[in-house]
């Protein structure tokens, strides 16, 4: 059935040849994202708001990065541009050598569909679908996805597969969201304040799941947060302030997520 709808309704079927990359051929440490001079200016009536003022950075395959900064530092804007949700005003963003900044809407849709896994602060689950179905809605349109059950197993929620979001706690909902994000085997997981709506204990469980996935699947993971504690589990911490990268910190000794508390 999915194919029918894709054919009839999916206006985005134009193949994105540049994106047809066999993900498993990517070696650990290869550059996944490369941004050069990315700026973002919002026109707010008469005034201009400079959300990003020239960002140059690289993200590498398999690494776990935390982008840390106060609100208004531009971290969400950067994540949105990397995730294909927003476009840069100036500068380029390359994903595996493919220029995201020159992609059209249809190509960005396919990019999000096949390559990016999103995790949101407020989970954004579909309330009318069960946990398993929330995962399935993504696997149905993905290429070579995991079984939804397997993805739920990965986040330790296989026994909640038939529950609807309203029947799950916040932490469980976020774990379903993680399962949904990883089930398509994305090459990058973009997490926007994944623990922002959760208490410390539950947040730790969620971070533990993200760490496990990063370890076991080798998925590049970028977490944005303003919670300093979270940065202890990253390999690199990118500090943002006022639309610029103020510091990139390499963490020699990563702390296991289970040991975090705030």
């Amino acid at each position, binding site marked *: *059935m*999915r194919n029918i*709808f*894709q054919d*009839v*309704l*999916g*206006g*985005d079927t134009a193949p994105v040849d540049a994106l047809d990359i066999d993900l498993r051929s990517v070696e650990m440490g290869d550059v996944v994202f490369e941004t050069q001079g990315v700026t973002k200016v919002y026109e707010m009536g008469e005034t201009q708001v400079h959300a990003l003022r020239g960002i140059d950075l690289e993200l590498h395959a398999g690494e776990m990065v935390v982008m840390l900064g106060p609100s208004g530092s531009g971290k*969400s804007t950067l994540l*949105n541009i990397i*995730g294909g*949700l*927003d476009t840069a005003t100036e500068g380029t963003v390359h994903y595996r050598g493919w220029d995201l900044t020159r992609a059209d809407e*249809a190509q960005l*849709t*396919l*990019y*999000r*569909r*096949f390559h*990016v896994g*999103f995790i*949101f*602060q*407020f989970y*954004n689950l*579909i*309330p*009318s*679908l069960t946990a398993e*179905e929330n995962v*399935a*809605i*993504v696997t*149905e*349109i*993905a290429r070579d996805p995991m079984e939804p059950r397997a993805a739920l197993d990965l986040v330790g929620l296989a026994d909640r597969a038939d529950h*609807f*979001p*309203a*029947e799950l706690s916040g932490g469980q909902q976020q774990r379903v969201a993680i399962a*949904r994000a990883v089930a*398509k085997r994305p090459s990058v997981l973009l997490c*926007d304040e994944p623990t922002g*709506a959760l208490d410390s204990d539950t947040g730790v469980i969620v971070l533990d799941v993200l760490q496990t996935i990063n370890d076991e699947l080798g998925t590049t993971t970028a977490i944005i947060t303003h919670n300093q504690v979270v940065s202890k589990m990253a390999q690199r911490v990118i500090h943002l302030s006022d639309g610029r990268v103020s510091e990139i910190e390499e963490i020699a000794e990563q702390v296991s997520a289970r040991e975090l508390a705030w």
Partner: protein
Amino acid sequence: MEDRGQTAKFHIPNSTFHTRTVFAIGKKLLRDLWGMRGQALAIAVVIVSGVAMFIAALGTMDALTRSQRSFYENARFGEAFASLKRAPTDVERRLQALEGVATVQTRVIADARLDLAAFDEPITGQLLSLPERGQPALNRLVVREGRLPRRGTETVASEAFAEAHDLHPGDKVTAIINGRHRSLTIVGVVLSPEYVYQIQPGGFFPTPERFGVLWVPRATLGAAYGMEGAFNSASFTFTAGANPQNVLDRVDEVLAPYGGRDAYLREDQVSHRYLTEELKQLEQLATTMPVTFLAVAAFLLNVVIGRLIRTQREVIATLKAFGYSDWAVGRHYVGMVLVIVAIGAVGGTALGTWLGRLLSQMYLQFYKFPELHYSLGIETVVVSVGVTALAVLGGTLYAVWQAVSLRPAQAMQPEPPATYRETIVERLGLKALFDQPTRMILRHLERRPLKALLSMLGIAASIAILMTSTFFADAVDYMIDVQFNRAQRQDLTVTFTGPTSDEALYELKSLRGVTTAEPFRSVPARFRHEHRQYRTGIEGLSPHPVLRRPLTDDLEPVPLSAEGVVLSDYIADVLAVERGDTLTVEVLEGTRPTRKIRVAGRTKQFIGVGTYMQIDALNRLVREGGALSGAYLALDPRYEEETISALTRRPGVASVQLQQRAVQSLLDTMGETVLTFTFVMALFAGAIAFGVIYNAARIALSERARELASLRILGFSQGEIGYVLLGELALLTLLAIPVGFAMGYGLCYGTAVGAQTELFRIPLVLERRTYALSALVVLIAGLASGVVVWRRLGNLNLVDVLKTRE
């Protein structure tokens, strides 16, 4: 923000604070309205449609009724009438002296044939006498053009007839009275309360081209018709408190020696009777249809406004957090919807008034009133706007109340995460058939079954009113087809000046161009069954007619038995008789025998009423052998004109009616009126359908924007999320179609039954195209709404979704 509000409250004098808040919240009101202008406009359109329809229909009805009443009063329309063979003028004094009689007006009425130089076809005429000087005491004429006659060779013509032939003062008309030609000069064009609905005796429709009424001075008509110093018709009014039936009995007693024939009340006067019936029918339509429209519109508004307000839940909470009272918040939203209601009410009233005037003018083509008393009924406006406003306010207040009854903190959160479950279809094991987006659609519908049901019913209701609006055209077509292609298949009807021997039939048959001739005999009669009675005519037909055939329910010819009478269904129902029952029939002519007669069957008749017997049986009943009143003829079209002119020259022929042509011109006019009415209704119904579906789509979009944006982020295309959103709408629309058909059928049935009159029984004929058209309009409305919403899906703000709570 909260702090600033508090400070302001303490430092600024109360009145100023109040003015400023009103100002700010008033601005919000206007901006909100502007922000949702599409939806607000769609709602206003629904209100305009409902209100306009209501005002137009009731306004038309009211205008016609008032015009009738005023005409009758000013023209002193008689309350009773009597016709007789011939009575000397001094009998008038005896009538005047009768207890209960207020005014008597006697006169001469003569049947004639009319001849106009510019018109080849036969014209039946009725000539009425006028007093030598001035207006008659009763049934006065309204002079529309020229003046009343002063000399013997002058006449005035009825406006309907004059208009049909473009006659004006100075034109000539020849009247053939008792075989003698008389040239008359038209000096005026008039209206009479007796001919508001000007139909030929025995006809069902006004045929102004072929039936003319002329008024001439009494001396002239008396001389021409052999009625010098005598009269053959009288009209009366009653004194206050008189018992009409007793007065009529006394009139009959006085007139019996002079061939008096059953004096009758105004309610049996032809024009008045038909007018009353038509107004009754119009009243039915003018109430059921607009009430349905208004009810549907009100229902939809209630649903739509409620949903619209629910999308404002967070704004309401914020206002409350700022310190606005529940009352102020409620007032704000009431103000907002009242602006929409006001736009709709003003638009609807203006449009309805304009349309009502237009429709009334169209009706004046059939009803000849001197003036149209059209006025905007305040009650009509109050009722329609009131109903709409109540429905809208009900929806608003309920939704606002739901929102304000929560604590601000709670209300600022969106509604708690919706609880869903698997749908019945899925639990039945069909789950595997549906992909996730389809499951979303089904579960969303099933979670709020009442809401889904209401939306579906709303769409169904617009289908139903669309069906009712097109149903009339089908019904009229069908009626005409049955009446003129199956029941009355003659090309023309010849009426003799009086009962004639059946040799006349052979004469007719021998005319060149006559292919079939069937005799008929008509006799006025009164039927009685238990306490019920009905005054009508009996028509005697040949035993196996081919031209004039009463039909069964299945539209097959009803066999006319050697004895017994066949009644049209309307009369059978009025008398409450079935086949096999026995009736009392009182013949109102000749020796006036009263007999028992068996009901031999019923006949289906959509237009007019009638009772039928074999002509020989009828002649035996009235004790006259082999007499006929006229004949139905089928003509060879090649000799048509020749045959007609031969017929019109014969002295014994009173009238020659061309069936098809007579009816055709009327139907053209009537069809125009029906079509205009239908078109207007269809337009309104279409507007309502669009308003409903568009709002349903827009609200669904605002309710689900977040969910859909999340799907977009997850890599769904605009097409795929469009499926989730519009699939729901499409499913509701598809479900609504059969439901709408059923509702429409019921509504049409109710209208047809409600609009049954002596003149018409509207058949419940719903052509496939009626179904198809209403479904099509709704589908188009759905599609158009879909396109609008679809374009908005392209502008979903994906970034906002990441940062907002559900």
